[in-house]
């Protein structure tokens, strides 16, 4: 156990050195490190609990996706049957399906063929699961049912998440923060982590808005009072203004132009009133639609509706042909700015709900770093002194091994670009506590072998070979616990699992190689007559 070939010794020293070197960039300021070659730039990332920032978990509203899918299907059915000139008496959404009752049973074959064309294979043409987005069945002759299956909803939710991620990225980037992290979690969730925010209120406002903007006509044919009594015409929606006092409006369901047809939106000020406004521009198709609608409706009010709230309902004074316009609606500078960000980024395909939020202010983060450092130094100091007092020169070897161990932990963490959290620091401190355990196991075994009457070199050799099996066994159990913790934990707890797990690996490595090499070198150099432990 104490004999190393020259190559093997060099290999061990080199491995330990290289791994330790990866920790070096952490000691230099970011700007300096950025000028280094790419491979040398890897460094630790401080967790949100240490540098401050917000962790926000969003969930796509599956019910809204389902409702939307059912309503689109109903509209599709109406269009298809109208085009095929098939008469029907009832068209309703019931549960998970759309039901339509044909007037004439004879037409059911034609209707069925046409309606079946609405169904598309899920998951695209490639890699589809063979399932269809709609299941069209017929019942009792003239009743056709189009069922939206759970798989179709799931597919929709997945698509929504993908689209939402891109839109959120655009929105968050407008905040000008460094390195935001936006990623899918599970099937219907999106994790947003933005470091260094003092107040996440604005971020949450940008995330929580669907930003679905529509231009629609105000129904002036029906008095609002009638709708308030619950008798709104079926082709209208009863909506309220976005600002207090909440004024009710009757707005046609038909959309003149939607926000999807905007190409740009910018905050600005009205030239006459110097109120904050948002000016926008439509794309070609949008411009044409808007021009036509305004030409036909001069003198009538139309409404700008954002997320089912009426921002403003101006009267069309003259046709708007240029494809651009402005929205004014008691904005502040901030809200005008936010609305233009939202309009530029686009509307979310489905509403998102914040289901978890964890924000740490920069003050607490700095405190945590200071406390983490302090406890690390004190912990390491106590252990070093204790080991020296207990094992003398061998205690020094143990301390050197532990120092290399800790440097290697930071090296591996940097190599993985891992996140260091406060519990992660606790994991390092605890690793120091148990890393010495491997040395204790070896030394105690050597002591026993000496007492059993072996010569020093024999005892050291036997001590190592017997203790190493135990070290491996005992560390694997802790490693299993760390692996489970990594799997189930999030954020800070996962940070703890990472440092604990890496710590175990480096501990086993140093015990098997570094410590052995140090002791072997010492034995060759001193040729001890007795073992001083």
């Amino acid at each position, binding site marked *: 156990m104490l004999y190393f070939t020259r190559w093997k010794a060099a290999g061990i020293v080199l491995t330990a050195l290289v791994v330790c070197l990866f920790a070096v960039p952490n000691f230099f300021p970011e700007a300096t490190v950025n000028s280094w070659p790419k491979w040398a730039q890897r460094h630790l990332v401080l967790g949100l609990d240490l540098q401050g920032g917000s962790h926000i*978990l969003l*969930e796509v509203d599956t019910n809204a996706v389902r409702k939307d899918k059912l309503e689109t299907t109903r509209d599709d059915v109406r269009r298809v049957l109208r085009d095929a000139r098939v008469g029907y008496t009832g068209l309703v959404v019931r549960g998970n399906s759309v039901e339509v009752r044909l007037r004439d049973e004879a037409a059911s074959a034609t209707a069925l063929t046409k309606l079946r064309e609405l169904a598309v294979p899920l998951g695209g043409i490639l890699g589809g699961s063979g399932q269809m987005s709609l299941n069209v069945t017929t019942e009792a002759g003239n009743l056709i049912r189009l069922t939206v299956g759970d798989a179709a909803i799931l597919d929709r939710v997945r698509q929504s998440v993908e689209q939402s991620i891109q839109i959120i990225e655009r929105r968050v980037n407008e905040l000008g923060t460094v390195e935001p992290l936006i990623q899918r979690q599970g099937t219907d969730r999106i994790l947003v982590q933005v470091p260094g925010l003092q*107040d*996440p*209120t604005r971020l949450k406002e940008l995330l*929580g808005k669907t930003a679905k903007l529509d231009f629609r006509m105000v129904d002036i044919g029906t008095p609002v009072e009638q709708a308030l009594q619950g008798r709104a015409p079926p082709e209208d929606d009863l909506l309220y203004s976005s600002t207090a006092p909440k004024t009710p409006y009757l707005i046609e369901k038909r959309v003149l132009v939607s926000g999807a047809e905007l190409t740009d939106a910018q905050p600005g000020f009205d030239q006459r009133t110097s109120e904050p406004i948002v000016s926008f521009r439509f794309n070609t198709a949008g411009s044409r639609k808007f021009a036509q609608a305004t030409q036909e409706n001069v003198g009538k009010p139309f409404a700008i509706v954002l997320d089912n709230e009426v921002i403003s309902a101006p009267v069309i004074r003259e046709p708007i042909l240029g494809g651009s316009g402005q929205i004014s609606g008691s904005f502040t500078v901030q809200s005008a700015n936010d609305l233009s960000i939202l309009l530029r980024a686009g509307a979310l395909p489905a509403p998102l*709900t*914040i*289901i*978890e*939020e*964890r*924000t740490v*202010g920069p*003050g*607490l983060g700095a405190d945590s770093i200071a*406390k*983490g450092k*302090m*406890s690390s130094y*004190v*912990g390491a100091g*106590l*252990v070093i002194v*204790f*080991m020296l007092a*207990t*094992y003398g020169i061998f205690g020094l070897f143990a301390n050197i091994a532990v120092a290399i161990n800790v440097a290697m932990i930071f090296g591996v963490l940097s190599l993985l670009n891992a996140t260091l959290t*406060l519990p992660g620091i606790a994991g390092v*401190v*605890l690793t120091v*506590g*148990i890393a*010495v*355990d491997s040395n*204790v*196991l070896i030394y105690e075994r050597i*002591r*026993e072998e000496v*007492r059993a009457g072996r010569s020093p070199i024999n005892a050291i050799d036997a001590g190592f*070979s017997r203790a190493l099996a*135990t070290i491996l*066994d*005992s560390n*694997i*159990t*802790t490693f*299993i*616990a*760390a*692996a*489970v*913790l990594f*799997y*189930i*934990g999030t954020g800070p*707890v996962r940070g*703890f699992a990472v440092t*604990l797990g890496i710590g175990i690996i480096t501990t086993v490595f140093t015990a098997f190689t570094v410590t052995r090499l140090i002791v072997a070198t010492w034995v060759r150099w001193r040729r001890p007559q007795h073992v001083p*432990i």
Partner: protein
Amino acid sequence: MRLLRIVPDDTKFDFMQFRRISFPISAVLSILAIGLYFFHGLNFGIDFKGGLLMEVQSKTPTADLSTMRTTLSGLGLGEVQLQQFGGPSNVLVRIAEQPGGDAAQQAAVQKVRGALGDSVEYRRVEVVGPRVSSELLSYGVVGLGLAILGILIYLWFRFEWQFALGAMIANVHDIVLTIGFMSITQIDFDLTSIAALLTILGYSLNDTVVIYDRIREMLRRYKKMPMAELLNASVNQTLSRSVITHVTVTLALLALLLFGGQAIHSFAATMTFGVVLVGTYTSIFIAAPILIYLGVGRGTDALTGPESGKSK
């Protein structure tokens, strides 16, 4: 230089005899702990219960708790708990989960922020909705179960089933007692506590495995030695290591406990209890003597572990 020697060489304590005391004590303590869990309960933190937690620092040197209480109680958010945290200007605000799903939690945050305004610095805000909290709880429980199962399988594979079972009993004993401790102290039980429990599990097993390793070695070497004597010898031989290792882990934990700050205080306290007090005791007084009852096989077949070839 004279070296520190905590445990003298060649101790001959009769640890096995002590099982007549340690087993009943552990049984009683475990029943007490389970009783505490059911009748006193754990202080579920925000991770598992959902709701709102804010750590705020007042801009005056001392936070005016009573004014804050009056302000926040007037918001109609149900019971508002205020607690001094760390220093005189730091206050921890806890508000129970609001009825009305995820959106209601966010509305509550806005209300609190609105009410406290700029008079405080918001050091930490955590909002956990009802779905996330129930998921986190089930993850935690499943994780604990998975870890125990994984370790059981590993030990079964490396040792005999009696060892695996013995370690498992010792393990569950550790966890039960630590949960009892959490119930008495009413420490926040959250994801960090699960991390603490899992780490305690890992360390306690680490210790148990070291002793079991020695027992296995002794079983191979001394085929005729009576079981109790053999177990005693094994524990005595590893005693010095057990003590020294525990001193180092304790030193590291003490540093965390005293200087790690409020954020990891409950974690460090739980670990200290579990690793320092329970873990060592369990390995020596429960895990080892229990092998007497489990009837560890002494046949050659049962003793040829993967290490048998190297032991000479």
